[in-house]
Protein backbone atom coordinates (compact mmCIF):
# COMPACT_ATOMS: atom_id res chain seq x y z
CA UNK A 1 0.00 0.00 0.00
CA UNK A 2 1.75 3.14 -1.14
CA UNK A 3 1.14 6.70 0.02
CA UNK A 4 -0.71 7.91 -3.08
CA UNK A 5 -3.15 5.03 -2.78
CA UNK A 6 -3.67 5.77 0.91
CA UNK A 7 -4.39 9.40 0.12
CA UNK A 8 -6.91 8.31 -2.46
CA UNK A 9 -8.65 5.79 -0.18
CA UNK A 10 -8.75 8.13 2.81
CA UNK A 11 -10.13 10.90 0.62
CA UNK A 12 -12.95 8.63 -0.53
CA UNK A 13 -13.69 7.67 3.07
CA UNK A 14 -13.79 11.33 4.10
CA UNK A 15 -16.22 12.17 1.32
CA UNK A 16 -18.47 9.31 2.35
CA UNK A 17 -18.37 10.63 5.90
CA UNK A 18 -19.49 14.07 4.78
CA UNK A 19 -22.36 12.60 2.80
CA UNK A 20 -23.45 10.52 5.79
CA UNK A 21 -23.57 13.46 8.22
CA UNK A 22 -27.38 13.83 8.39
CA UNK A 23 -27.81 10.08 8.86
CA UNK A 24 -25.18 10.03 11.63
CA UNK A 25 -26.87 12.93 13.41
CA UNK A 26 -30.16 11.05 13.18
CA UNK A 27 -28.75 7.81 14.58
CA UNK A 28 -26.94 9.63 17.40
CA UNK A 29 -30.20 11.37 18.29
CA UNK A 30 -32.00 8.19 19.37
CA UNK A 31 -29.98 7.72 22.53
CA UNK A 32 -27.40 10.53 22.31
CA UNK A 33 -27.35 14.21 21.52
CA UNK A 34 -27.59 14.01 17.77
CA UNK A 35 -24.31 15.64 16.82
CA UNK A 36 -22.16 12.81 15.47
CA UNK A 37 -22.63 14.03 11.89
CA UNK A 38 -21.55 17.54 12.89
CA UNK A 39 -18.36 16.18 14.42
CA UNK A 40 -17.65 13.83 11.50
CA UNK A 41 -18.06 16.67 8.99
CA UNK A 42 -15.31 18.45 10.88
CA UNK A 43 -13.22 15.27 10.99
CA UNK A 44 -13.64 14.81 7.23
CA UNK A 45 -12.63 18.42 6.64
CA UNK A 46 -9.45 17.95 8.68
CA UNK A 47 -8.58 14.67 6.94
CA UNK A 48 -8.91 16.33 3.54
CA UNK A 49 -6.87 19.31 4.70
CA UNK A 50 -4.00 17.09 5.81
CA UNK A 51 -4.23 14.98 2.64
CA UNK A 52 -4.06 18.17 0.56
CA UNK A 53 -0.93 19.46 2.31
CA UNK A 54 0.82 16.24 1.36
CA UNK A 55 2.76 14.89 4.34
CA UNK A 56 5.54 12.48 3.33
CA UNK A 57 5.42 8.90 4.67
CA UNK A 58 2.48 6.74 5.71
CA UNK A 59 3.09 6.86 9.49
CA UNK A 60 3.66 10.62 9.28
CA UNK A 61 0.45 11.09 7.32
CA UNK A 62 -1.64 9.07 9.77
CA UNK A 63 0.02 10.89 12.67
CA UNK A 64 -0.69 14.30 11.19
CA UNK A 65 -4.34 13.35 10.70
CA UNK A 66 -4.56 12.12 14.29
CA UNK A 67 -3.00 15.26 15.70
CA UNK A 68 -5.16 17.47 13.50
CA UNK A 69 -8.36 15.79 14.63
CA UNK A 70 -7.30 15.84 18.30
CA UNK A 71 -6.80 19.60 18.07
CA UNK A 72 -9.63 20.45 15.73
CA UNK A 73 -12.50 18.09 16.59
CA UNK A 74 -12.03 17.25 20.25
CA UNK A 75 -15.43 15.66 20.97
CA UNK A 76 -16.02 12.08 22.11
CA UNK A 77 -15.95 10.50 18.69
CA UNK A 78 -13.41 13.00 17.36
CA UNK A 79 -10.99 12.21 20.16
CA UNK A 80 -11.49 8.47 19.65
CA UNK A 81 -10.92 8.72 15.91
CA UNK A 82 -7.83 10.83 16.59
CA UNK A 83 -6.58 8.17 19.00
CA UNK A 84 -7.18 5.49 16.39
CA UNK A 85 -5.11 7.37 13.80
CA UNK A 86 -2.30 8.08 16.26
CA UNK A 87 -2.09 4.45 17.34
CA UNK A 88 -2.25 3.25 13.74
CA UNK A 89 0.55 5.65 12.88
CA UNK A 90 2.74 4.12 15.58
CA UNK A 91 1.81 0.55 14.62
CA UNK A 92 2.61 0.88 10.93
CA UNK A 93 6.00 2.40 11.48
CA UNK A 94 7.84 -0.83 10.76
CA UNK A 95 6.03 -1.40 7.50
CA UNK A 96 5.46 -4.95 6.22
CA UNK A 97 3.04 -6.96 4.15
CA UNK A 98 -0.11 -4.83 3.46
CA UNK A 99 -2.77 -7.15 4.94
CA UNK A 100 -0.74 -7.77 8.10
CA UNK A 101 -0.03 -4.07 8.29
CA UNK A 102 -3.72 -3.24 8.10
CA UNK A 103 -4.45 -5.82 10.80
CA UNK A 104 -1.75 -4.36 13.03
CA UNK A 105 -3.07 -0.82 12.53
CA UNK A 106 -6.63 -1.74 13.44
CA UNK A 107 -5.55 -3.82 16.41
CA UNK A 108 -3.58 -0.84 17.70
CA UNK A 109 -6.52 1.47 17.02
CA UNK A 110 -8.83 -0.86 18.94
CA UNK A 111 -6.51 -0.99 21.92
CA UNK A 112 -6.09 2.79 21.87
CA UNK A 113 -9.80 3.45 21.73
CA UNK A 114 -10.46 0.95 24.52
CA UNK A 115 -7.85 2.56 26.72
CA UNK A 116 -8.99 6.10 26.01
CA UNK A 117 -12.77 5.53 26.16
CA UNK A 118 -12.84 2.75 28.78
CA UNK A 119 -15.67 0.97 26.99
CA UNK A 120 -15.74 -2.83 26.71
CA UNK A 121 -16.99 -4.96 23.83
CA UNK A 122 -20.77 -5.28 24.25
CA UNK A 123 -21.21 -1.72 25.51
CA UNK A 124 -22.69 -0.74 22.13
CA UNK A 125 -19.91 1.64 21.12
CA UNK A 126 -17.26 2.09 18.47
CA UNK A 127 -15.29 -0.60 20.33
CA UNK A 128 -17.69 -3.26 19.05
CA UNK A 129 -17.12 -2.16 15.48
CA UNK A 130 -13.34 -1.91 15.79
CA UNK A 131 -13.15 -5.29 17.50
CA UNK A 132 -14.95 -7.07 14.67
CA UNK A 133 -12.84 -5.29 12.05
CA UNK A 134 -9.66 -6.21 13.89
CA UNK A 135 -10.72 -9.85 14.19
CA UNK A 136 -11.63 -9.99 10.52
CA UNK A 137 -8.25 -8.53 9.44
CA UNK A 138 -6.40 -10.98 11.63
CA UNK A 139 -8.23 -13.89 10.03
CA UNK A 140 -7.52 -12.50 6.56
CA UNK A 141 -3.83 -12.22 7.41
CA UNK A 142 -3.80 -15.82 8.57
CA UNK A 143 -5.65 -16.84 5.41
CA UNK A 144 -3.10 -14.95 3.31
CA UNK A 145 -5.68 -12.75 1.57
CA UNK A 146 -4.69 -9.83 -0.60
CA UNK A 147 -5.18 -6.49 1.22
CA UNK A 148 -8.03 -5.24 -1.02
CA UNK A 149 -9.94 -8.42 -0.39
CA UNK A 150 -9.14 -8.19 3.33
CA UNK A 151 -10.40 -4.62 3.42
CA UNK A 152 -13.62 -5.64 1.70
CA UNK A 153 -14.15 -8.40 4.27
CA UNK A 154 -13.39 -5.97 7.09
CA UNK A 155 -15.99 -3.53 5.73
CA UNK A 156 -18.46 -6.40 5.58
CA UNK A 157 -17.67 -7.22 9.23
CA UNK A 158 -18.16 -3.57 10.22
CA UNK A 159 -21.54 -3.46 8.50
CA UNK A 160 -22.83 -6.62 10.11
CA UNK A 161 -21.61 -5.52 13.54
CA UNK A 162 -23.34 -2.16 13.11
CA UNK A 163 -26.50 -4.11 12.24
CA UNK A 164 -26.02 -6.28 15.29
CA UNK A 165 -25.76 -3.27 17.62
CA UNK A 166 -29.35 -2.43 16.68
CA UNK A 167 -30.44 -5.42 18.70
CA UNK A 168 -28.14 -4.62 21.62
CA UNK A 169 -29.95 -3.18 24.57
CA UNK A 170 -28.02 -0.21 26.01
CA UNK A 171 -27.18 -1.45 29.47
CA UNK A 172 -25.16 1.52 30.64
CA UNK A 173 -25.63 5.24 31.06
CA UNK A 174 -28.56 7.46 30.21
CA UNK A 175 -29.85 5.30 27.41
CA UNK A 176 -30.48 2.45 29.82
CA UNK A 177 -33.47 4.35 31.29
CA UNK A 178 -35.23 4.23 27.95
CA UNK A 179 -33.71 1.21 26.16
CA UNK A 180 -36.59 1.18 23.67
CA UNK A 181 -35.45 4.50 22.22
CA UNK A 182 -32.11 3.13 21.04
CA UNK A 183 -33.30 -0.42 20.37
CA UNK A 184 -33.84 -1.16 16.71
CA UNK A 185 -31.34 1.50 15.60
CA UNK A 186 -27.66 0.70 15.01
CA UNK A 187 -25.09 2.48 17.19
CA UNK A 188 -24.09 5.70 15.50
CA UNK A 189 -20.34 5.24 15.99
CA UNK A 190 -20.41 1.69 14.57
CA UNK A 191 -22.42 2.89 11.59
CA UNK A 192 -19.82 5.56 10.99
CA UNK A 193 -17.08 2.93 10.94
CA UNK A 194 -19.04 0.77 8.50
CA UNK A 195 -19.58 3.75 6.20
CA UNK A 196 -15.92 4.78 6.02
CA UNK A 197 -14.64 1.22 5.59
CA UNK A 198 -17.16 0.50 2.86
CA UNK A 199 -16.13 3.64 1.00
CA UNK A 200 -12.45 2.81 1.44
CA UNK A 201 -12.91 -0.75 0.23
CA UNK A 202 -14.91 0.37 -2.78
CA UNK A 203 -12.23 2.89 -3.76
CA UNK A 204 -9.44 0.35 -3.22
CA UNK A 205 -11.27 -2.17 -5.38
CA UNK A 206 -11.12 0.50 -8.09
Amino acid at each position, binding site marked *: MNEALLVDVLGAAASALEDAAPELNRLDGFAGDGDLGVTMTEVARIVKEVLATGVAGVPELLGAIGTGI*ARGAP*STSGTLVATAFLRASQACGEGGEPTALLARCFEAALEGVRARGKAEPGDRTLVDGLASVSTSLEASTADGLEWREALAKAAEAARSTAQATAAMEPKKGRASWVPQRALGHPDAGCSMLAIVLSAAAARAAG
Partner: protein
Amino acid sequence: MRKIINQPKAFVDEMLEGVLLAHPGSLRSPARRVVVRADAPRHGKVGIVTGGGSGHLPLFMGYVGTGLADGVAVGDVFASPSADQVLEASRAVDGGAGVVYLYGNYSGDVMNFDLAAELAIAEGMQVATVVGTDDVASAPEAQAERRRGVAGIAMLYKVAGAGAEEGRSLAEVVTVTERASSGLRSMGVALSPCTLPAAGEPTFSLPDGQMEIGMGIHGEPGVSRGPLRPAAAIAVELVDHIVDGLSCGRGDDVAVLVNGLGATPVEELYVLYRSVHGALVSRGIDVRRAWVGEFATSLEMAGASVSVMRLDDEILGLLDAPARSPLLARW
Protein backbone atom coordinates in the same frame (compact mmCIF):
# COMPACT_ATOMS: atom_id res chain seq x y z
CA MET B 1 -33.32 31.33 14.46
CA ARG B 2 -33.43 34.16 17.00
CA LYS B 3 -29.81 34.79 17.73
CA ILE B 4 -27.63 37.83 18.21
CA ILE B 5 -24.58 36.49 16.39
CA ASN B 6 -22.41 37.12 13.36
CA GLN B 7 -20.99 34.16 11.42
CA PRO B 8 -22.01 30.99 13.32
CA LYS B 9 -18.48 29.63 12.85
CA ALA B 10 -17.05 32.66 14.66
CA PHE B 11 -19.47 32.37 17.58
CA VAL B 12 -17.20 30.88 20.22
CA ASP B 13 -14.16 33.00 19.36
CA GLU B 14 -16.16 36.24 19.23
CA MET B 15 -17.79 35.36 22.54
CA LEU B 16 -14.34 34.87 24.01
CA GLU B 17 -13.13 38.18 22.62
CA GLY B 18 -16.12 39.83 24.26
CA VAL B 19 -15.34 38.19 27.60
CA LEU B 20 -11.73 39.33 27.51
CA LEU B 21 -12.67 42.86 26.45
CA ALA B 22 -15.28 43.12 29.21
CA HIS B 23 -13.08 41.80 32.03
CA PRO B 24 -9.50 42.77 31.25
CA GLY B 25 -8.50 43.14 34.88
CA SER B 26 -9.78 39.73 35.92
CA LEU B 27 -9.13 37.32 33.08
CA ARG B 28 -6.46 36.69 30.48
CA SER B 29 -5.94 34.20 27.68
CA PRO B 30 -2.55 32.46 27.64
CA ALA B 31 -3.46 30.38 24.56
CA ARG B 32 -6.25 30.04 22.04
CA ARG B 33 -9.57 29.18 23.76
CA VAL B 34 -7.90 29.05 27.15
CA VAL B 35 -8.83 31.58 29.84
CA VAL B 36 -7.28 31.95 33.28
CA ARG B 37 -7.44 34.32 36.22
CA ALA B 38 -5.37 37.41 35.50
CA ASP B 39 -3.28 36.70 38.60
CA ALA B 40 -2.50 33.06 37.71
CA PRO B 41 -0.33 31.24 38.58
CA ARG B 42 -0.63 31.82 42.31
CA HIS B 43 2.51 30.50 43.94
CA GLY B 44 1.86 27.66 46.36
CA LYS B 45 -1.88 27.52 45.69
CA VAL B 46 -3.47 24.43 44.20
CA GLY B 47 -4.73 25.35 40.74
CA ILE B 48 -8.17 24.32 39.55
CA VAL B 49 -8.71 23.75 35.85
CA THR B 50 -12.09 23.17 34.30
CA GLY B 51 -13.52 23.10 30.83
CA GLY B 52 -16.17 21.77 28.52
CA GLY B 53 -18.34 22.75 25.62
CA SER B 54 -19.58 26.29 25.03
CA GLY B 55 -23.26 27.16 25.26
CA HIS B 56 -23.58 26.54 28.98
CA LEU B 57 -22.55 29.91 30.45
CA PRO B 58 -21.95 30.69 33.23
CA LEU B 59 -20.63 27.10 33.10
CA PHE B 60 -17.63 26.71 32.68
CA MET B 61 -15.81 30.00 32.19
CA GLY B 62 -18.05 31.81 34.66
CA TYR B 63 -16.46 29.88 37.51
CA VAL B 64 -12.98 31.22 36.88
CA GLY B 65 -12.38 33.66 39.69
CA THR B 66 -11.30 34.15 43.27
CA GLY B 67 -12.25 31.24 45.50
CA LEU B 68 -13.34 29.25 42.46
CA ALA B 69 -11.48 27.81 39.45
CA ASP B 70 -8.24 29.23 38.06
CA GLY B 71 -8.48 28.30 34.40
CA VAL B 72 -10.79 26.95 31.73
CA ALA B 73 -10.44 25.20 28.38
CA VAL B 74 -13.27 26.39 26.14
CA GLY B 75 -14.73 23.94 23.64
CA ASP B 76 -16.95 24.54 20.64
CA VAL B 77 -20.68 24.68 21.28
CA PHE B 78 -21.61 21.51 23.19
CA ALA B 79 -18.25 19.94 22.31
CA SER B 80 -15.22 19.09 24.39
CA PRO B 81 -12.06 21.19 24.36
CA SER B 82 -8.86 19.48 23.25
CA ALA B 83 -6.21 17.98 25.49
CA ASP B 84 -3.86 20.68 24.21
CA GLN B 85 -6.08 23.42 25.59
CA VAL B 86 -6.36 21.70 28.96
CA LEU B 87 -2.59 21.34 29.05
CA GLU B 88 -2.12 25.04 28.26
CA ALA B 89 -4.54 25.96 31.04
CA SER B 90 -2.66 23.69 33.43
CA ARG B 91 0.67 25.27 32.63
CA ALA B 92 -0.79 28.75 33.12
CA VAL B 93 -2.29 28.09 36.55
CA ASP B 94 0.17 25.66 38.16
CA GLY B 95 1.73 27.43 41.11
CA GLY B 96 3.79 24.41 42.10
CA ALA B 97 1.19 22.91 44.43
CA GLY B 98 -0.48 20.81 41.78
CA VAL B 99 -3.61 21.11 39.68
CA VAL B 100 -7.10 19.65 40.11
CA TYR B 101 -9.09 18.91 36.97
CA LEU B 102 -12.72 19.52 37.94
CA TYR B 103 -15.29 19.14 35.18
CA GLY B 104 -18.45 17.30 34.20
CA ASN B 105 -18.53 13.66 33.23
CA TYR B 106 -18.92 13.65 29.43
CA SER B 107 -16.93 11.10 27.52
CA GLY B 108 -15.26 13.63 25.22
CA ASP B 109 -14.23 15.80 28.15
CA VAL B 110 -13.00 12.82 30.17
CA MET B 111 -10.83 11.59 27.33
CA ASN B 112 -9.30 14.99 26.67
CA PHE B 113 -8.70 15.81 30.33
CA ASP B 114 -7.20 12.35 30.87
CA LEU B 115 -4.88 12.81 27.93
CA ALA B 116 -3.93 16.27 29.19
CA ALA B 117 -3.22 14.83 32.62
CA GLU B 118 -0.82 12.31 31.10
CA LEU B 119 0.98 15.11 29.26
CA ALA B 120 1.03 17.43 32.29
CA ILE B 121 2.37 14.73 34.56
CA ALA B 122 5.05 13.99 31.96
CA GLU B 123 6.02 17.66 32.28
CA GLY B 124 6.39 17.27 36.03
CA MET B 125 3.10 18.69 37.26
CA GLN B 126 1.01 17.01 39.94
CA VAL B 127 -2.49 16.44 38.58
CA ALA B 128 -5.59 15.01 40.24
CA THR B 129 -9.09 14.71 38.81
CA VAL B 130 -12.57 15.09 40.28
CA VAL B 131 -15.45 14.58 37.87
CA GLY B 132 -18.95 15.91 38.50
CA THR B 133 -21.51 13.10 38.19
CA ASP B 134 -24.62 14.67 39.71
CA ASP B 135 -27.27 14.03 37.04
CA VAL B 136 -29.33 11.16 38.50
CA ALA B 137 -31.32 10.85 35.27
CA SER B 138 -28.25 9.95 33.27
CA ALA B 139 -27.70 6.52 34.84
CA PRO B 140 -29.12 4.43 37.67
CA GLU B 141 -27.68 4.73 41.17
CA ALA B 142 -25.77 1.44 40.73
CA GLN B 143 -23.84 3.09 37.86
CA ALA B 144 -23.41 6.40 39.69
CA GLU B 145 -19.88 6.86 38.35
CA ARG B 146 -21.27 6.89 34.79
CA ARG B 147 -23.59 9.81 35.47
CA ARG B 148 -23.17 13.09 33.68
CA GLY B 149 -22.24 16.31 35.43
CA VAL B 150 -24.79 19.14 35.43
CA ALA B 151 -25.52 22.31 37.42
CA GLY B 152 -24.50 20.83 40.78
CA ILE B 153 -20.90 21.27 39.73
CA ALA B 154 -21.32 24.97 40.62
CA MET B 155 -21.25 23.91 44.28
CA LEU B 156 -18.18 21.76 43.68
CA TYR B 157 -16.27 24.73 42.27
CA LYS B 158 -17.18 26.57 45.44
CA VAL B 159 -15.93 23.77 47.70
CA ALA B 160 -12.75 23.08 45.77
CA GLY B 161 -12.03 26.74 45.14
CA ALA B 162 -12.44 27.74 48.76
CA GLY B 163 -10.25 24.85 49.87
CA ALA B 164 -7.51 25.81 47.42
CA GLU B 165 -7.77 29.50 48.34
CA GLU B 166 -7.28 28.55 52.01
CA GLY B 167 -3.97 26.95 51.09
CA ARG B 168 -4.98 23.30 51.39
CA SER B 169 -2.86 20.66 49.68
CA LEU B 170 -3.79 18.92 46.45
CA ALA B 171 -4.81 15.77 48.34
CA GLU B 172 -6.91 17.75 50.80
CA VAL B 173 -8.72 19.66 48.08
CA VAL B 174 -9.44 16.43 46.21
CA THR B 175 -10.69 14.63 49.33
CA VAL B 176 -13.21 17.27 50.36
CA THR B 177 -14.38 17.88 46.78
CA GLU B 178 -14.92 14.16 46.27
CA ARG B 179 -16.88 13.97 49.51
CA ALA B 180 -19.03 16.90 48.40
CA SER B 181 -19.50 15.27 44.99
CA SER B 182 -20.54 11.96 46.48
CA GLY B 183 -23.32 13.74 48.37
CA LEU B 184 -24.52 15.73 45.37
CA ARG B 185 -27.45 14.86 43.09
CA SER B 186 -29.30 16.81 40.39
CA MET B 187 -32.19 16.32 38.03
CA GLY B 188 -33.85 18.58 35.51
CA VAL B 189 -36.86 19.10 33.32
CA ALA B 190 -36.78 20.54 29.81
CA LEU B 191 -39.68 22.48 28.30
CA SER B 192 -38.18 23.43 24.95
CA PRO B 193 -35.19 22.60 22.78
CA CYS B 194 -32.38 24.96 21.90
CA THR B 195 -30.68 25.75 18.60
CA LEU B 196 -26.94 25.55 17.98
CA PRO B 197 -25.70 28.56 16.03
CA ALA B 198 -23.95 26.36 13.48
CA ALA B 199 -26.94 24.05 13.04
CA GLY B 200 -29.71 26.65 12.84
CA GLU B 201 -32.31 24.02 13.73
CA PRO B 202 -33.53 22.95 17.18
CA THR B 203 -31.49 20.11 18.67
CA PHE B 204 -34.62 18.01 19.19
CA SER B 205 -38.36 18.54 19.14
CA LEU B 206 -40.43 19.04 22.26
CA PRO B 207 -43.88 20.34 21.42
CA ASP B 208 -45.31 23.31 23.32
CA GLY B 209 -47.16 21.99 26.36
CA GLN B 210 -44.88 18.95 26.76
CA MET B 211 -42.04 18.44 29.19
CA GLU B 212 -39.26 15.89 29.41
CA ILE B 213 -38.12 14.93 32.87
CA GLY B 214 -34.45 14.04 33.12
CA MET B 215 -33.45 15.28 29.69
CA GLY B 216 -29.71 15.89 29.33
CA ILE B 217 -28.29 19.35 28.88
CA HIS B 218 -27.54 18.61 25.23
CA GLY B 219 -31.02 17.25 24.68
CA GLU B 220 -30.23 13.60 25.40
CA PRO B 221 -33.46 11.67 26.03
CA GLY B 222 -34.58 11.66 29.66
CA VAL B 223 -36.61 9.44 31.92
CA SER B 224 -40.11 10.35 30.74
CA ARG B 225 -41.92 12.73 28.44
CA GLY B 226 -45.45 13.92 28.95
CA PRO B 227 -47.80 16.86 29.29
CA LEU B 228 -46.40 19.84 31.18
CA ARG B 229 -47.37 19.59 34.84
CA PRO B 230 -47.62 22.25 37.56
CA ALA B 231 -44.46 23.46 39.27
CA ALA B 232 -45.42 21.73 42.51
CA ALA B 233 -45.70 18.33 40.81
CA ILE B 234 -42.42 18.80 38.96
CA ALA B 235 -40.70 19.68 42.23
CA VAL B 236 -41.97 16.55 43.98
CA GLU B 237 -40.88 14.29 41.13
CA LEU B 238 -37.40 15.80 40.93
CA VAL B 239 -36.88 15.75 44.70
CA ASP B 240 -38.07 12.12 44.88
CA HIS B 241 -35.51 11.02 42.32
CA ILE B 242 -32.75 13.08 43.92
CA VAL B 243 -33.31 12.10 47.53
CA ASP B 244 -33.73 8.42 46.64
CA GLY B 245 -30.06 7.83 46.03
CA LEU B 246 -28.80 10.39 48.46
CA SER B 247 -29.94 8.43 51.53
CA CYS B 248 -30.73 11.70 53.15
CA GLY B 249 -33.56 12.31 55.58
CA ARG B 250 -34.72 13.68 58.91
CA GLY B 251 -32.12 15.88 60.53
CA ASP B 252 -29.76 15.98 57.55
CA ASP B 253 -28.46 19.31 56.33
CA VAL B 254 -28.40 20.17 52.63
CA ALA B 255 -27.69 23.01 50.25
CA VAL B 256 -30.06 23.42 47.31
CA LEU B 257 -29.49 24.96 43.92
CA VAL B 258 -32.33 25.61 41.49
CA ASN B 259 -30.92 26.30 38.04
CA GLY B 260 -32.50 27.75 34.93
CA LEU B 261 -31.58 26.17 31.59
CA GLY B 262 -31.63 29.44 29.69
CA ALA B 263 -35.09 30.74 28.78
CA THR B 264 -36.97 30.14 32.01
CA PRO B 265 -37.58 33.37 33.96
CA VAL B 266 -36.06 33.60 37.43
CA GLU B 267 -39.57 34.14 38.78
CA GLU B 268 -40.48 30.61 37.68
CA LEU B 269 -37.33 29.24 39.29
CA TYR B 270 -38.46 30.74 42.60
CA VAL B 271 -41.94 29.25 42.16
CA LEU B 272 -40.19 25.90 41.67
CA TYR B 273 -37.88 26.51 44.61
CA ARG B 274 -40.89 27.11 46.85
CA SER B 275 -42.09 23.55 46.23
CA VAL B 276 -38.62 22.01 46.30
CA HIS B 277 -38.10 23.56 49.71
CA GLY B 278 -41.46 22.22 50.85
CA ALA B 279 -40.70 18.72 49.58
CA LEU B 280 -37.37 18.63 51.41
CA VAL B 281 -38.69 20.11 54.64
CA SER B 282 -41.59 17.65 54.67
CA ARG B 283 -38.97 14.88 54.82
CA GLY B 284 -37.37 16.52 57.82
CA ILE B 285 -34.38 17.68 55.80
CA ASP B 286 -32.88 21.00 56.83
CA VAL B 287 -32.17 23.37 53.94
CA ARG B 288 -29.19 25.39 55.13
CA ARG B 289 -28.31 27.26 51.95
CA ALA B 290 -30.16 27.92 48.70
CA TRP B 291 -29.26 29.47 45.35
CA VAL B 292 -31.71 30.19 42.59
CA GLY B 293 -30.72 31.44 39.14
CA GLU B 294 -28.76 30.41 36.07
CA PHE B 295 -25.68 28.34 36.91
CA ALA B 296 -25.46 25.96 33.96
CA THR B 297 -27.53 26.59 30.85
CA SER B 298 -28.16 24.95 27.50
CA LEU B 299 -28.27 27.99 25.26
CA GLU B 300 -31.91 29.13 25.24
CA MET B 301 -33.49 25.88 26.39
CA ALA B 302 -36.52 26.39 28.65
CA GLY B 303 -36.53 24.34 31.82
CA ALA B 304 -34.83 23.97 35.14
CA SER B 305 -32.83 21.62 37.28
CA VAL B 306 -32.66 21.00 40.99
CA SER B 307 -29.44 20.08 42.79
CA VAL B 308 -29.16 18.96 46.39
CA MET B 309 -25.88 18.56 48.27
CA ARG B 310 -25.50 16.89 51.64
CA LEU B 311 -23.61 19.11 54.05
CA ASP B 312 -21.21 18.65 56.90
CA ASP B 313 -19.61 21.51 58.81
CA GLU B 314 -16.48 21.51 56.70
CA ILE B 315 -18.35 21.61 53.41
CA LEU B 316 -20.73 24.27 54.68
CA GLY B 317 -17.78 26.39 55.74
CA LEU B 318 -16.29 26.14 52.26
CA LEU B 319 -19.62 27.00 50.62
CA ASP B 320 -19.78 30.12 52.79
CA ALA B 321 -16.28 31.31 51.95
CA PRO B 322 -16.02 34.40 49.76
CA ALA B 323 -15.88 33.84 46.02
CA ARG B 324 -16.05 36.17 43.08
CA SER B 325 -15.85 35.84 39.34
CA PRO B 326 -16.36 38.51 36.69
CA LEU B 327 -19.01 36.55 34.83
CA LEU B 328 -21.05 35.69 37.92
CA ALA B 329 -20.69 38.99 39.73
CA ARG B 330 -23.55 41.21 38.72
CA TRP B 331 -21.95 43.57 41.27
